[in-house]
């Protein structure tokens, strides 16, 4: 020490250094303090107060269904889900349509403006039907078979085979070892589904057909089978006058059919322009979780109690995954899950999540789930109302995800402004199903105020069929609403419910399957998605084509509207009154900023 160097600084320098340090300290602290004092975490930014689109302002099936002027005829029996899916598709694409239960009834009410016929299961059964279909082909009416007639009938009738573009029936029943979708059909390009093993009749096709989806065959190379000879699943047969689309498997069990209809009909003209929702959202069911229940079990698994696990493990994981995939957070709060347990919901925990959610621009709604008996749902609503109004009295909940809660419990409260219930101001109802229900529309008005959105997939589990549905819905509506249910994390039943596994599954799902769509379409919270869906339901549009131009006119335009343009042989030169992005080869997302859009096109290089 004795030999140390003594550095002398002048008084002036000392003052400058000290001042600088104080300024730095102040600036850093100022940021924190200002954040705390200006925080509006307990206010719902996503609550719609103005420009609220009610059911009456939207295009409803009543407006489109017309027995005399329909352009699309749907032939399906009442128990055939393809009929409801086709009707929903017509509603979303704003087509005038009419539903018939058989070809004979359609024949009676045939409209001259009809240019497309969607045929459901078992609608073609007799020679007379086939003969009539042939006459429709001559009238330049496009046919779309959501599932093919009986194989025996196809085998018997050369006329039907010619209509369908089938050369011959190779095998009446064949199990594929997977399926392949080819590029240019659905968004996402060529995809092989090795686990989509389906049983279909094996046909060989005539020239003049275009195949969109085929079944794979084991040892294809060894058996020297060409790709062109693989069992076709979805194809198009071009005749000299019309186009016939055939689906050799029933994809109309759920909303997958929506996307297939869009993708197939897009291939009918030189371009296709249709409205989309343009919203990608993720619903975290039962997160945030504000109680410390089931802690013994949780501690055994994670060495944390439930509250700590949620705050210190799950929340950071979720934030990092969301950030990595540019997704937005929509959390459905579960103040408690076990309403028989006396452990109270933690006030500070709730406030913590409100603050954290604000930081990542997330939205918080309410979950309807609990694990006790069915009688506890009523109790849950009461307790939650009391707890939430006590902790966050200024926060008006606009999103509600009932989960397992029976409709009878929450139905009456939704949108009932006269009532002092936590559900009174709800505008978005999340119908949390593992798979979308074909019986219900993907989104529809629950009542005049509340829009119900069906979730489109489970973020913890993604099968080949789920992926097909995801791609189909993105192609058709640019919409997805993924649900992640955290109830099983806090009340696990098996090793599969371990968060380490579930977080990996979710991360893989987001990165692998949704990433392309996340990049191209807009990330939203559920309320934002709801707002977009309302605009989508409200608008109507007309398209006119001129040389190197496409004119789009939008009725009931509200601030913005999104459209998908499929333009296979040209490319966009410029767009007036809208912005556009190329989301994939030949596909563009058009975001209109005015009610009249002109798309200038040029020849593709």
């Amino acid at each position, binding site marked *: 020490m004795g030999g140390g160097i003594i550095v002398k600084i002048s008084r002036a320098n000392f003052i400058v250094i000290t001042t600088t340090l104080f300024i730095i300290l102040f600036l850093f602290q100022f940021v924190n303090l200002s954040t705390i004092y200006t925080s509006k975490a307990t206010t719902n930014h996503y609550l719609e107060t103005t420009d609220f689109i009610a059911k009456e302002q939207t295009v409803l099936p009543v407006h489109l269904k017309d027995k005399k002027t329909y352009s699309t005829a749907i032939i399906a029996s009442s128990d055939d889900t393809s009929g409801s899916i086709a009707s929903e598709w017509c509603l979303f694409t704003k087509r005038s349509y009419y539903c018939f239960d058989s070809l004979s009834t359609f024949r009676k009410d045939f409209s001259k403006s009809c240019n497309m016929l969607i045929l459901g299961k078992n609608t073609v059964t007799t020679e007379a039907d086939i003969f009539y279909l042939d006459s429709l082909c001559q009238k330049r009416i496009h046919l779309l078979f959501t599932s093919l007639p009986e194989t025996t009938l196809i085998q018997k009738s050369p006329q039907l085979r010619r209509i369908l573009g089938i050369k011959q029936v190779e095998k009446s029943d064949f199990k594929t070892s997977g399926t392949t979708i080819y590029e*240019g059909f659905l968004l996402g390009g060529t995809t092989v589904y090795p686990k989509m093993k389906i049983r279909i009749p094996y046909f060989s096709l005539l*020239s003049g057909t275009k*195949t969109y989806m085929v079944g794979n065959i084991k040892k294809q190379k060894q058996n020297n089978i060409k790709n062109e000879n693989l069992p076709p699943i979805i194809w198009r047969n071009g005749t*000299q006058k019309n186009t016939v689309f055939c689906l050799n498997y029933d994809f109309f069990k759920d909303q997958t059919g929506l996307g297939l209809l869009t993708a197939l009909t897009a291939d009918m003209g030189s371009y296709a322009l249709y409205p989309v929702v343009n919203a990608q959202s993720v619903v975290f069911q039962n997160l945030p979780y504000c109680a410390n229940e089931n802690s013994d079990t949780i501690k055994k698994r994670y060495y944390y109690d439930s509250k700590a696990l949620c705050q210190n493990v799950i929340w950071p994981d979720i934030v990092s995954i969301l950030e990595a995939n540019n997704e937005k957070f929509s959390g459905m709060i579960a103040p408690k899950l076990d309403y028989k347990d006396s452990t109270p919901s933690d006030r500070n925990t709730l406030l913590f999540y409100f603050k954290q959610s604000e930081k990542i621009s997330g939205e918080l709604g309410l979950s309807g789930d609990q694990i006790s008996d069915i009688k506890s749902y009523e109790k849950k609503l009461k307790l939650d109302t009391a707890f939430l109004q006590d902790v966050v009295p200024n926060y008006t909940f606009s999103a509600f995800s009932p989960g397992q809660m029976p409709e009878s419990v929450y139905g009456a409260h939704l949108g009932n402004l006269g009532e002092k219930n936590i559900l009174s101001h709800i505008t978005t109802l999340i119908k949390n199903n593992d798979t979308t229900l074909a019986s219900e529309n993907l989104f529809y008005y629950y009542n005049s105020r509340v829009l119900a959105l069906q979730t489109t997939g489970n973020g913890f589990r993604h099968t080949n069929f789920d992926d097909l549905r995801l791609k189909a819905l993105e192609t058709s509506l640019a919409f997805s609403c993924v649900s992640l249910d955290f109830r099983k994390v806090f009340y696990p039943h098996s090793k599969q419910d371990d968060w380490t596994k579930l977080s990996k599954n979710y991360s893989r799902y987001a990165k692998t399957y949704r990433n392309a769509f996340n990049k191209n379409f807009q990330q939203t919270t559920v309320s934002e998605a709801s707002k977009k869906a309302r605009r989508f339901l409200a608008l109507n549009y007309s398209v006119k084509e001129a040389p190197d131009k496409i004119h789009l006119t939008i009725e009931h335009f509200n601030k913005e509207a999104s459209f998908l343009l499929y333009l296979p042989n040209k490319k966009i030169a410029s767009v007036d009154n809208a912005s556009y992005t190329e989301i994939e080869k030949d596909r563009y997302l058009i975001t209109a900023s005015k009610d009249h859009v002109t798309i200038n096109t040029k020849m593709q290089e």
Partner: protein
Amino acid sequence: MNMQLQTLFELIQCSLAYMVCFLLLPYLVLNRQLKEKSLTDKFLSCLILGNIYIINIVFLIFLLHIPGRITLILAAILPAFFIWKKLNHPRILQTLLFLYKSFFKLLTGEAKIRTIFRLVFHRPKKVLLRTIKKSIQHIRCHFLEWCFLLALSAFNIWYYSYQTFHTYSYGTNDLVVHHSWINQMLQGNIFCDGIYPFGFHNVLYFLGSIFGIPLVSLFRVFSVMQMLLIYLSLYFLTKKLCRSRFMPYLGMLIFTLPNLFNFQSTMRYQWTLPQEYGMIFLYPCAYYLIQFFDRKRAELVKEKELTKKRKLYTWLALYQIHPSTKSLVFFAISFSLTLTAHFYITIIAFFLCAAIAIAYFPTVFYYRYFFPILTAGLISLFISVAPMGAFYLQGTQLQGSLYWALSAMSDGNDSTQAADSEEDDDNDTHSVSDTGKKTPSLPSQAVLQDKGNAKNTNKLSLTEKCRQAVTGLYHRIANRAVVYTNKLKNANHTLISSLDKEYNSHTFSTALTYATELFLVLSFFAILLWRRPAARNFFAVTLYLFLMILLFSAEDLHIPAVMDHARACIFLAYATPLFLTCLAEAVYLIIAKPMHYRFYTELLPIGLCALVAFLTIQNNYIKKLNIVYSIQQPGEMRCNYEIMKKYPEKDWTIVTTTDTLQVIYYKGWHYELNTFLGKMAPFKRETVETIPTKYVFFYIEKKPIVLESFSFLNHPIANSGVVSKEHARKRAYYKTTAPYTADNRLILESKFYYWAKAFQNLYPQEFTVFYEDDSFICYRLKQNPEHLYNFAIDYGYNN
């Protein structure tokens, strides 16, 4: 890009590339050696050395089996660099050291970057400024000459590039063959079809490889550069032969503007072909041979003079290589280049050199002339034949056309004999016809008289005998003279009628025939009288033209024909302006002599040029646009360009006739039309016809071309009609050896057209029109390469 703009860009690109490699590079290497030389000498030296160097570099890398872009660049640059270093002694090490030091000075802050830049670029800046100054000075002194040259060149560029700019397609079938050979070279396979003079191919291969210029572009536009060089070599030779500064322009003007020659004489200049490329080196042979005689004469005079003064060693020390030897080297190289490019040019070069040799008789046989020329000749043969010989020894066979040429030559010998015998017969016929007229021929009259008087011979006195003998001799000579005069007259008539095929004016061909003969005699006498080089040169040129006339009229004159009419007419046309210029120059020399060839005497050639130009324009006698044997529709070439430019390599196939095959070779795939249609004729349900690429283009000629049939450039391309159902119904021949000839082509294209219409109904979105005009349509099909479309359909005309 607009096709015409694209063509212009390619033209500039090709011309610049050629000039850099074949003119600028040799000039930079031989900068010091060329310093004192005239611009003409510099230009010709660079052109010839550049060509011989690069052609042999290409041969070398193929002989070593190392073809490739990098090896080619190294092989071209490294020897040139070492030669440059050897000849110019550049201070490379010092320069590098200076740069190194400067860099460190810059880092240490001892010098500013501006100072270093100033030092580094001081010399280049000086050289550049000096060059600009010299160029301006040169142009100022020769302004009118440059104006003449540029005007004539501009007209020629317009005239000969008209086809390239308007039809875009290949003008003749030959191009396809040469294109395929160079395509093979790009794949590392020289002489793919056998040994052939590959000089021209090497040049195009070099340009294509080094600069990445597509061969199709080179074949379309290189002809313009080639044509300019052909015209320039005519200009340079006339410049060498003329004393007047402006007389050479007369030759160029005659060859450029008036509609004197048959279209066949100049049509090939529109196309990039080896024979035309070889023509560039034809007149330089004469140029350097004449230069050799001039220089050698001057050297011998000087040598004699200094030997007398006993200062010979002083004189010898002046030169490392005698200027005459240099001329002879350039002559040898030029001659070898003719042989490297095309055999026909060598034949003509031989005639030209022979004419010069005869003109310089007997000087040419002096040992100081004869042996160097002989050595040069042998060396030139060796230079050109050696690479081909090396490949032959490696086992490559001769190309078919060479066998054909050899057999033709042997046939020619046979025909010579036949011609001789025919000539004899003709002679007999003539005599018969003479007697036939019942006018006894003079010799027989003399014989009769001789017989009648034989009895009285003994009785006659010596004086009488002498008188009779003289009279007899006189009659005999007169008789012979009449016979030969008649023969000459007949030959002249034959020549004139033959030349009528070459020249568009009968008067001109008559005048030219007589003028050639007259001036051949006059210049011969001029040589005897004056022995001046000018007279010898004039005689050589006249003799050369005369030989060209004989070559052209050989068949009509029943003498052995070395080459066919179509080829000979090109060389005759090329020789004509040379002769006319020399003729005008001779007149100028005589008229301007009293005025001592002062500058104002130049008004005479200027006036003559102006008069020729004026009369040509006044009488609307300007050369008409030439003909073209199109093998593709303009739209087809346009599509080829578009596809090659915009679609990924090997990701597309074109279904068409074979005319486009070489153009797209190695870029994409080609599927032949007759195979395509043949597979679905007749239609069977089980027929599967697929093409495994993402994009498939279908070229359909709505007005099918008639191959081997020409059309004038301002007229539509020769076609066999319009595609129709009637033709589609007819039976087509799919497996014939020539499926695309007139009728079958029309039938095939008609079927193809209706196939496309039917297929478009099935795939309206995927099968779209890519390009369409009045005579051509191109469809594009986009398919999934993993699941291909079956093209075999029943389109209604599958027979």
